């Protein structure tokens, strides 16, 4: 096959992803699958992690919090990057739908960041004897990330016009995502100076296979769950943004009938 | 020169104007009229490249206005509702800054004279009246080496003599091959070759 049809096919896919009715239907079709898959994976992963996996020889059973803490932390960072990339695409190519994705990711990302903080704090109590350990780089980083999410949402809310809110907050997201790695490494550097404890030491007790598999299942389950909620939120967001168009009016009339 | 093709402008959730097309050629003046809230200011801001249209194109010499390189952008001068003067600087200071920043004409004395602002040249702008400030803003416009003037209600606050100066300047400008798009509530006081009613 020559390169041209592939490129044109990619181009068409890109265009379709910019078309609200297409994405609305796509999200509607994906959502039930993602929802079912994520619930199954979360149930299996939780059962495996809570019941089947052996307790950690150092931390005992409290290590089982890892199965929700690590996926939450991973989604909080992934969520921020996804939000910034979507916002940047929306800003550069003036793609309204990409702004819509960024808007939908923000509250989800913020919630998972909060979850990472809460579960990290609860995990800290039996491990360090305190709920909040200032010296832990990961928790400190999550806290700053939560502030970044909140800043993004507050900035959006302070504009009346959606269009302007989209474009201004996109710039903030881009500034934030450039700073995220800098913040990450500077906080790590800071904790090594102050020699704070960390939950997972590098080269420390290596995680065994029967502990790792439920973690991977939970990671997949959390990601699909995130995707599911993103689809549902995106559908609502598209309806709001496209309320003037004919296809949305027809849809509303159909739903009413 | 200035080409507008099927322009559609929105402000917030409401459509201000749609399907506007026209072309402005050297020596022509477009008079933009319409009731309050009809989108005169929004249209001028789009023409200046300060705001983006919802759909359609505005091109200056074939390039979209918001994509113009800084050097070509200075061929367009815009004067909005607000005068764009610094209150803390003197009348002359404001003109000098405009001249230096825009690399403009060295005619500060003549402009102050024509605007009858010579006695106030060393007065801070905050102590000038609204009409005097408007005149000074027009003086800043005159200094810029621009070919297209985009003026939003330039006659506001001006007395008869001020309006007279503006009429002469506009004639000079278009006579020398310049272009102008002017929004106004008093279309009788200005002459144009193109009337755009919103």
């Amino acid at each position, binding site marked *: 096959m020559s390169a041209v049809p592939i490129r044109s096919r990619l181009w068409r896919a890109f265009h379709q992803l910019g078309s609200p009715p297409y994405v609305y239907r796509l999200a509607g079709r994906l959502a039930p699958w993602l929802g079912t898959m994520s619930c199954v994976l979360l149930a299996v992963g939780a059962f495996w992690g809570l019941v089947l996996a052996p307790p950690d020889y150092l931390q005992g059973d409290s290590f089982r919090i890892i199965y929700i803490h690590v996926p939450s932390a991973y989604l909080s960072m992934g969520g921020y990057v996804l939000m910034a990339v979507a916002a940047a695409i929306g800003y550069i190519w003036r793609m309204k739908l990409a702004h819509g994705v960024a808007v939908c990711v923000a509250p989800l990302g913020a919630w998972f960041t909060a979850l990472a903080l809460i579960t990290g704090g609860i995990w800290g109590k039996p491990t360090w004897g305190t709920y909040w350990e200032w010296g832990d780089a990961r928790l400190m980083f999550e806290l700053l990330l939560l502030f970044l999410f909140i800043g993004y949402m507050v900035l959006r809310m302070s504009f009346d016009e959606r269009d302007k809110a989209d474009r201004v907050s996109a710039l903030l997201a881009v*500034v934030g995502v450039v700073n995220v790695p800098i913040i990450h490494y500077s906080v790590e550097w800071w904790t090594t100076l102050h020699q704070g404890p960390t939950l997972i030491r590098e080269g420390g007790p290596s995680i065994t296979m029967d502990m790792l598999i439920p973690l991977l299942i939970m990671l997949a389950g959390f990601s699909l769950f995130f995707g599911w909620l993103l689809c549902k939120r995106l559908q609502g967001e598209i309806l709001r943004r496209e309320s003037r168009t004919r296809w949305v009016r027809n849809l509303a009339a159909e739903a009413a009938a | 020169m200035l080409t507008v093709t099927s322009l559609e402008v929105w402000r917030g959730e409401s459509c201000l104007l749609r399907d506007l097309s026209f072309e402005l050629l050297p020596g022509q003046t477009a008079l933009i009229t319409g009731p309050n809230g009809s989108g005169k200011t929004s249209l001028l801001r789009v023409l200046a490249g300060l705001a983006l249209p919802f759909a359609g194109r505005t091109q200056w010499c074939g390039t979209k206005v918001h994509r113009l390189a800084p050097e070509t952008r200075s061929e367009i001068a815009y004067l909005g509702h*607000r005068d*764009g003067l610094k209150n803390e600087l003197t009348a002359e200071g404001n003109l000098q800054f405009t001249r230096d920043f825009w690399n403009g004409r060295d005619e500060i004395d003549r402009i102050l004279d024509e605007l009858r602002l010579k006695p106030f040249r060393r007065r801070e702008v905050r102590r000038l009246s609204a009409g005097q400030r408007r005149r000074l803003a027009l003086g800043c416009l005159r200094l810029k080496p621009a070919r297209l003037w985009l003026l939003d209600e330039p006659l506001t606050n001006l007395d008869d003599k001020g309006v007279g100066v503006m009429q002469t300047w506009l004639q000079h400008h278009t006579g020398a091959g310049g272009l102008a798009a002017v929004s106004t509530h008093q279309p009788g006081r200005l002459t144009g070759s193109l009337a755009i009613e919103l």
Partner: protein
Amino acid sequence: MADIFICILKRDLRLAFRRWSELATPLIFFVIIASLFPLAASPDEAQLRSTGAAVLWMSALLSSLLALDGLFRADAEDGSMEQLILGPAPLGLVVLAKIVAHWSVSGVPLLVLAPVLALSFYLPLTALPGLVAALALATPTLSVLAAIGAALTVSLRAGGTIIGLLILPLTGPVLIFGTRATELAALGEPLAGPLYLLAALAVLSVSLGPVITAAAVRTALE
């Protein structure tokens, strides 16, 4: 290019001196925060010696945010920002000139005041060059970050408080490296490490910041 930069620089400096009370406010704010701190904690010498660096840096951080809050607002309100946007120079250059002007009237006095306050917190005299060097490298980054915040919120009435929310989380690295450099200076140890990191941040923010700030001003006033 250079003459346009100088032209904006001169204009903003002149305006700043005409409104010198606005100029002085962030500096007085800096001094007041730093001097209220012992009231909140304790006047105990050992305690002040150990927390002095942190107090100085937090006050410097807050006062530089405050100083740049109105960087674009005055120009946006009287319509001159529109003229600057439409001017014959890249907006990034104009923004850079404005930041440099504001830094030289708000950041430089901070460099002069900080050592005096540092002495009152029992920091040794030998630590002062290190402190000033760290502040000199850190304040440009803080100014650029504050300028981005000021640009994003230029069209909002309640800009000032939101800027803090948007920008303070991003100042974490500057704070970490700055206080570390000051602590090392107080201990008389080599402090090149954190200074290099601060310099790297300054280079990054001064090169990328004005472009982002210009885009933000343009978008916010669209």
